[in-house]
């Protein structure tokens, strides 16, 4: 799970062009949206594409995304339980 979290942090920084942020700057339980990393709605769509492209997880219910994308911790948990790639 630790490796998956580190991989996720690197992918998010790369896909979302988070300049000047390193994986070490992102805490596992830090909020990805709002006060935390300050991601926006387009970033949320990019995360949905990331889940599909990298882990074979299709999120059809946007309401689910709110829970899954709370933090690196929640994302990693959902991916490890649902990944097909």
């Amino acid at each position, binding site marked *: 799970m630790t490796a998956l979290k580190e991989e996720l942090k690197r992918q998010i920084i790369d896909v979302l062009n*988070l300049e000047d942020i390193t994986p070490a700057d992102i805490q596992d339980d830090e909020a990805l949206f709002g006060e935390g990393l300050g991601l926006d709605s*387009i970033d949320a769509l*990019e995360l949905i594409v990331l889940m599909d492209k990298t882990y074979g997880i299709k999120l059809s219910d946007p309401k689910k995304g709110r829970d899954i994308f709370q933090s690196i911790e929640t994302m990693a948990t959902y991916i490890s339980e649902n990944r097909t790639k």
Partner: protein
Amino acid sequence: MLEKANIQKSCTIEQHRIVVDDKLVWTNEENLPFSDFAKEAFQHLDIDYPKFYKMDALSKLAFLAAEYILQDEETNGLALVLANKSGSLDTDIKHQESIQDMDNYYPRPATFVYTLSNICSGEIAIRHGLQTENSFFIAEEFPEETIFAYADYLLQSGKANRVLCGWVEYFQEAYRAVLYIF
């Protein structure tokens, strides 16, 4: 109609040089790709605006030109009238490439949102809190008469206190921005 004599300030970005009112304010190595030039020109401004890194090239160019020309300027009632030749074609091509292969079909939302040329006007408006008139024209060359006539109308009709207008063109590493404040 407005004439060059009415120009209060100008900013030109081309060939890795940023010139404000005929004064060189930033330059770097000319062999750098535009993305690196833009990043360094942005960091030179020393402002906290992480959204810049997510913009497409056209928006970065327009954002930088606006940022440099609007330093120490009042933006209340400032209208935007921009033009270019290639629209958002550079980003349109990137988006098209992402949907070309049906077996690897992953359109990028962050790319798709920039497939309209006037998004760069929106980025300037968001950054400076502008809730004023704005227009974006597509033309082979800078449509000086149209732009200046429209700016003149905005000023004469009281729809704007001042107008930021000009040319912001980007296509596959070829770029030029020339902005004026009337």
